[in-house]
């Protein structure tokens, strides 16, 4: 089991946004998060990625297993595509970026500076970073933003290959990726506003 949440409650800026969340993801499984803007999908993903603590409930995530992809791609505009990927590969202790370049069709852009890429190309590079992490649990926040139809297919194929290889994926998205995945609609878990111990101070941290 890569991630297991039971009765999880999360807060954004001290305000509880979601509660009563229970889900589990094992090898080869994907979970799609759905919900309107502001529902708390990003907050949930950041909590799973370990960037913020949960408000209550338990969340177990396998040690050193998360590869997180946020709205921002974490690219340096003055570095080339290859340099950007190689940096993340060495941070995660991997050596080869070739497979990632091929998988996201970045081969022809390999020597271009990331700052000169289009929004969709940058996103492809940001997603290619997931492949060089070598980590099993992909936590993806709206990964298809600014991708064209062909690139969405590339991405869906990459996720399928990742799942087939024993990985797992937790994806917040508004579009249909055509994946065999369970869907968790967070709307029904919206937190009822009430005072939570520690919530007041949390707002100022």
């Amino acid at each position: 089991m890569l991630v297991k949440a039971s009765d999880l409650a999360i807060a954004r800026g001290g305000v509880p946004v979601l509660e009563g969340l229970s889900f589990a993801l094992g090898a080869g499984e994907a979970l799609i998060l759905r919900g309107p803007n502001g529902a708390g999908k990003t907050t949930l993903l950041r909590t799973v990625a370990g960037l913020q603590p949960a408000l209550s409930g338990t969340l177990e995530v396998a040690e050193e297993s998360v590869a997180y992809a946020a709205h921002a791609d974490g690219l340096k505009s003055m570095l080339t595509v290859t340099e950007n990927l190689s940096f993340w590969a060495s941070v995660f202790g991997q050596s080869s970026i070739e497979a990632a370049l091929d998988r996201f069709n970045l081969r022809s852009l390999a020597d271009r500076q990331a700052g000169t890429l289009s929004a969709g190309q940058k996103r492809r590079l940001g997603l290619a970073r997931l492949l060089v992490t070598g980590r099993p649990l992909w936590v993806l926040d709206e990964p298809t933003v600014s991708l064209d139809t062909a690139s969405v297919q590339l991405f869906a194929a990459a996720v399928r290959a990742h799942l087939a290889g024993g990985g797992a994926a937790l994806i917040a998205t508004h579009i249909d990726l055509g994946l065999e995945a369970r869907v968790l609609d967070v709307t029904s878990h919206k937190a009822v506003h009430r005072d939570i111990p520690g919530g007041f101070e949390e707002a100022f941290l």
Partner: protein
Amino acid sequence: MIALLRRDLALAVRAGGGFGLGLAFFLIVVVLVPFGVGPETPLLTAIAPGVLWLGALLACLLSLDRILALDWEDGSLDLMATSPLPLEGVVTIKALAHWVTTGLPLVLAAPVLGVLLNLPGPGYPWLTLSLALGTPALSVLGTFGAALTVGLKRGGLLLSLLVLPLYVPTLIFGAEVARRGAAGLDPMTPLLMLAGITCGTIALLPFASAAVLRMNLR
């Protein structure tokens, strides 16, 4: 970690990286001082160690908000926090990269600029040594300030206000080493104090920086 250092150094020397900015600022400040206080040689000799130290300190301050703000803006900081790199290591490497691109050029340029302020002969090695010992503390303290203000829009001024008081001990002992050296006195006591401050900040502050960074990334 080495990859992060290499990336930061590569970014610093490429267009828009800000390498040399601090150095140019240092140069201009030191050149402007004789215009401001007048050309009397004895006066310049007397204030040279303090002016050189103050110039180096301000030049260091200039580039502090770049240490973490750029990585915050493009999302790299979030990704690094979820990577195998410990945040304590990340802030240490960031401070090291800042020192190599800002502090080290200042150390190397200071003796040359000492000539402009008529620094006495025996003062040169002590000035260089005091800057070499003191500027790492400036970078580490600055990284702590940058971690405190990361995510604030236009946090640069607040960063300066937070960091400048923390620079006081380094400035006092650093300038004292250079002053005593220039006057031919024994500079060992302030030199040891300066070295102690630097070692202490390098040993302790990365933990504080990483802790506030975790808080700010929430």
